[in-house]
């Protein structure tokens, strides 16, 4: 352990340094505009896609029906007990994040994260209203609140709140029929929960995206801390070719130009950075790899007639190779390596498993809950009865008659207790509903099932019309020895 001199008196707390990113043009900026348009388009417009669902349900393609606990996605209908689909999608999202991070660093952060996308949108609106970096800086430093400053600030905050409202509004449309809810919201007839959600999401959108901005990434988000575990020396990150750029400095005529590096210290990369960092300092926790500094630097290199790529996507392993004069590894070699291939395999296996589960699932479903208090009932003729609660789900748009039977032991017979206490083997289940029905399974006196401890057998439920059937294995408890 070494020690240095005690540092001089310093501030324990620092105020935030406001960041005024300058406008930039280039291929990565264009890519970000496209991603912003697509992702925001999906988010704002999806609830308005219509889909015919018959007379009783809203004709909405994507709908989370909390009251009835159903999730509709185009032709797919998910019930709560099929939550594993959601779990599978979340696992895929996680693995996908690992894949993209190990291949190309924090591309999620830089391009697709809602925090980035909305912050980008809020900064764009800010620029439209107050002007580019220098104009915004001037306005910020201007102490006097004249009419112009008040007007600009008012328009800006109003626009921000409108964006927030649209965002919170789009969220609630996923939970109810969007056109009806819009009318209700405007006329004041919507459920208080809708207004509350709308208000909270408006506030959080404006606060996170427009006010807190990069502080969410730096202080609140756990992902920058986790990402290091996903990245290695072959991961593509945004980096500065210091061996090419240094020593940096203004290029003056006659000065020892040959000794100077390509970096002219124009601060373009710093001025466009939405995180307020200097990429030339190397890898930093704050860097979300949005690549805007690449665009800014390339633009400058073009102007001074130097090759592009002083700031570029590259991997750590490229640095020693380039310094020693070798060619850097081609990009595909960075991307296709065992680690990313493993992530891809895992990701697609989960995906195929989900697709498989989606295609084999039936629109009848049954779960069997044996009543184990008591384990069996002795009937007066010596027969042994077991009781089961069957949950029958009709995931179909019309009422259906289900027939229940048992197999696996010929002596077992089943009767269902209908709602009117009559016994039978069929039961009607309403469209899109679940019904609990009690099933009595009996083994006659002296039969093997009655006298042994446990007998495996199978419940079957079938719909005579669609010829669908589903089975569940369970156990019959006898008297034992």
């Amino acid at each position, binding site marked *: *352990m*070494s*020690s*240095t*001199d*005690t*540092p001089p008196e*310093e*501030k*324990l*707390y*620092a*105020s*935030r*340094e406001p960041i005024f990113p300058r406008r930039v043009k280039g291929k990565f900026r264009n890519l970000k505009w496209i991603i912003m348009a697509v992702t925001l388009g999906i988010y704002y417009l999806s609830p308005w896609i219509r889909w015919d669902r018959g007379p009783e349900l809203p004709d909405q393609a994507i709908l989370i029906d909390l009251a009835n606990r159903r999730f509709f996605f185009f032709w797919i209908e998910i019930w709560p007990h099929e939550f594993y689909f959601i779990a599978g999608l979340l696992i895929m999202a996680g693995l996908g994040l690992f894949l993209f991070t190990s291949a190309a660093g924090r591309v999620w952060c830089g391009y697709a994260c809602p925090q980035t996308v909305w912050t980008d949108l809020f900064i764009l609106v800010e620029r439209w209203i107050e002007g580019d970096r220098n104009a915004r800086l001037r306005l910020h430093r201007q102490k006097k609140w004249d009419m112009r400053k008040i007007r600009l600030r008012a328009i800006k905050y109003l626009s921000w709140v409108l964006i927030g409202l649209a965002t919170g509004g789009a969220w609630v449309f996923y939970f109810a029929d969007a056109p009806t809810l819009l009318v209700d919201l405007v006329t004041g007839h919507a459920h208080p929960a809708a207004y509350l959600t709308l208000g909270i999401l408006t506030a959080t959108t404006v606060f996170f995206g427009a006010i807190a901005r990069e*502080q969410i990434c730096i*202080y609140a988000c756990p992902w920058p801390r986790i990402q290091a575990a996903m990245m290695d020396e072959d991961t593509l990150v945004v980096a500065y070719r210091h061996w090419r750029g240094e020593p940096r400095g203004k290029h003056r005529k006659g000065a020892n130009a040959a000794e100077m590096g390509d970096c002219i210290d124009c*601060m373009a990369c*710093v001025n466009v950075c939405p995180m*307020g960092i*200097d990429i030339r*300092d190397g890898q930093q926790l704050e860097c979300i790899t949005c690549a805007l500094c690449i665009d800014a630097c390339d633009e400058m290199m073009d102007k001074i007639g130097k090759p592009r790529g002083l700031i570029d996507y590259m991997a750590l392993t490229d640095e020693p190779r380039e310094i020693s004069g070798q060619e850097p590894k081609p990009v595909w070699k960075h991307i296709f390596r065992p680690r990313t291939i493993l992530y891809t395999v895992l990701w697609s296996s989960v995906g195929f498993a989900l697709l498989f589960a989606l295609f084999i699932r039936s629109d009848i479903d049954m779960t069997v809950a044996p*009543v184990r*208090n*008591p384990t069996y*009932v*002795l*009937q*007066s*003729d*010596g027969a042994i*009865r077991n*009781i089961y609660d069957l949950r029958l789900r009709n995931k179909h748009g019309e009422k259906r008659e289900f027939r229940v039977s048992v197999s696996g032991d010929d002596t077992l017979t089943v009767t269902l*207790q209908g*709602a*009117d*206490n009559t016994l039978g083997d069929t039961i009607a289940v309403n469209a899109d509903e679940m019904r609990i029905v*009690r099933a*009595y399974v009996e083994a006659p*006196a002296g039969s093997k099932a009655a006298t042994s401890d446990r007998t495996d057998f199978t419940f079957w439920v079938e719909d005579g019309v669609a010829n669908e059937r589903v089975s569940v294995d369970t156990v019959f408890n006898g008297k034992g020895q």
Partner: protein
Amino acid sequence: MSKKEVETTGHSWDGIEELNNPLPRWWLLVWYACILWGIAYTVAMPAWPGIKSATAGVLGWSTRAEVAEKIASFEEMNAAVNAELAAADVTMIKPGSDVHSYGVNMGAAVFRANCSQCHGSGAAGNFGYPNLLDNDWLWGGTIDEVAYTIQHGVRNETDEARYSEMPKFGADELLTDEEIDQAVAFAMSLSDPEGDGTNLVGGTYDVELAAAGAEVFEYNCASCHGEDGTGDIYQGAPDLTDAIWLYGGDHDTVYDTVFNARFGVMPAWGQRLTQAEVNAAALYVHQLGGGQ
């Protein structure tokens, strides 16, 4: 924007230095806000413990009051259906109706609180306490008979209670030892359709004694249990021909029953429960699988 040098704390491990970045000021402000919130919260809500109770808080919020309020609102909500259940003739309550499903659910709660101590939480009964899931009923398994049994109970001090008393054939010396042995064997043979000396529940008896016991049974037992031994629900006399034995169907237990008799008692629940609760318990018991 000039680059600021970050101070280090002076600590260094394996060449890794600990930076001393200043905290964002708003973190400090959030911390102060949390302290203020904490103080306000303990003033507004129940918080500081005392010897017997805690400070109530100026908002006067209490979980107990909230529960009481909720119970009251549920009772108000159910008042109409509850009144209907109390006034109903149980035989006329249609399964599948609102009153029926309300009654069954309420009955399940009544059963757990009042009946499960003897009959078991699953209603499977116990030694001397009938199983309510099977299709054998001492006093009748129709809904009105079940309701009557719950209302007035069995062999208790009330006048309306179900009542019958089996003679203590041995203890009161009504029968000789030989006759008791014969009667026991005959009673057991009733639940032995094969006649091989082992009855439906595995109890063994002497086939010759049983043959000799037919006469003893006819003169002493048949008046209640019936000539064929199938019992009589009007006297609570058990069916001796089936597989269900309240106290056990083995030889020693049956001997004990004949010698000392049995006197099972059930309280008159009508004295303790409301009419709606009695009806609810009857509906619940009746739909357990054995109801007739």
